[in-house]
């Protein structure tokens, strides 16, 4: 994959990065480095100003409007600000990623419940998101990103609101998905994570790629 800069003062400047299928990558860098922007480019929430982004050989910068949803169905995203639907219950939120795929009602309910269970929130299934704590909302977002077994998983600070033991169990979910073949990119600034789990680490700083190890 390969991508470059949008924005007024280049937010991402001449980045070239290749992620193999099935890899697990830490994306790190200080606040405002462009981690979130990089992830947003990957699922077409933003178009690159120049350069190209290839996923499975397809240039997603050139994809047409109608094709975007189908691309996104293969990409699970944990947003930094969660982006939960406020007028749907937790269960419906998680199920929505399956709903758009046209799954049956029972299938949706069952799989969503299982994921909620995995993030330890089955008792909150019927709550509305605004009634949850920050950490609980984050876990709902993670459950939704995982529920349709995406081929690519992008997680933006997925553990920013979680305590250490929950962080461990959530990361375990990501590793499990990775083991099942999902390509995972996790943006984080938490050095303890990088230290505890050694994976390929990509460092960004002020829009530039500063290390890749």
């Amino acid at each position: 994959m390969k991508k470059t800069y949008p924005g007024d003062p280049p937010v991402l400047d001449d980045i070239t990065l290749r992620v193999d299928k099935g890899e697990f990558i830490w994306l790190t860098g200080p606040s405002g480095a462009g981690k979130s922007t990089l992830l947003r480019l990957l699922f077409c929430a933003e178009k690159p100003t120049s350069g190209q982004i290839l996923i499975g050989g397809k240039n997603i910068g050139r994809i047409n409007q109608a094709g975007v949803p189908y691309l996104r169905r293969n990409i699970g995203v944990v947003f930094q600000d969660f982006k939960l639907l406020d007028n749907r219950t937790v269960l419906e939120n998680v199920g929505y990623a399956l709903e758009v795929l046209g799954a049956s009602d029972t299938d949706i309910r069952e799989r969503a419940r299982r994921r909620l269970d995995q993030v330890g929130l089955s008792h909150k299934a019927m709550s509305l998101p605004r009634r949850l704590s920050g950490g609980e909302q984050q876990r709902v977002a993670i459950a939704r990103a995982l529920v349709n077994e995406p081929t690519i998983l992008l997680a933006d600070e997925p553990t920013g609101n979680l305590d250490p033991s929950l962080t461990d169990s959530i990361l375990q979910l990501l590793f499990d998905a990775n083991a099942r073949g999902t390509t995972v990119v996790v943006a984080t600034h938490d050095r303890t994570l990088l230290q505890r789990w050694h994976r390929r680490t990509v460092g960004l700083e002020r829009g530039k790629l500063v290390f890749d190890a």
Partner: protein
Amino acid sequence: MIAHVAWRLSRRAAVNLWRAPLLSLVSVLTIGLSLFIGATFVLGLFTARRLLTSWGAQPSMTLYLNAATTDAQGLTLAQQIRGRGDVDVRYVDAAVALQRLRADLGELGPALDGLTQNPLPASLEIRPRAPLAATSLRVLAAELEQSPGVRDVEYGREWLDKLEALGRGLRAFGAGALLAVIGAALMVVANTIRLAVYARRDEIEIMKLVGATDGYVRAPFLMEGALQGVLGAGVGVGAVLAAQHLLLPHASQAFAAAAGVGAPHLLPAHAAALLAAGALVGFVGSWIAVARFLKT
């Protein structure tokens, strides 16, 4: 599959209506009130038109016959004209005409006693069976004037001119105003729906981010829009019916007295049309409103 999706959408529309009643309520009320205003306007215009028409139709027509015409010829002509089927005809012979003139003159009547012969012609009194528009009346007059033995046709020409001018004014002004009012009401409804969708723009954004196609995002909004439209139309129809029950009992007597025209009423067919219109407006309004937020 389709039925399945439709069922899911309906359920969701109902749930949203239940969970965020304010948004839906506002749309429903706005649609209802706009329809009410529009319907009131239309009913008002129609009533005005019917009043004008009925007044235009009231003047009877008098066919003055040639002095030479005999009573027998007159009666035959009356019979002929009656044969058209759309008018009542009465033959008034010269003697009756003179009597009437005398009566009309009142105290001056005796002045006619000095006449040596009856100078009045026989005439036919024509009364359209159904109320006729001014133009139809004119046409009828022109037609009857061609009948054999007819010397002159008299009808409230001047009065009719006035009514016609007024009718033209009403048409020019009314049609324009009607278009403007309906356009304004539609814009208000569209605006409200757009605002309601705006309040849910985050939802649209999130749905798209999670991989929903434009159609899939749009569908529940359309469903809700149509539902709100139908409910709104229900409110509007209810308001019109309520207004009729409260206001018309007073007004209808006056109307009847003024013109023999019944007061305006909303028919069930119109109500059904309004419900359908409400659904359509809600649907189309939602479509346009959502399109705006789907682009980004």
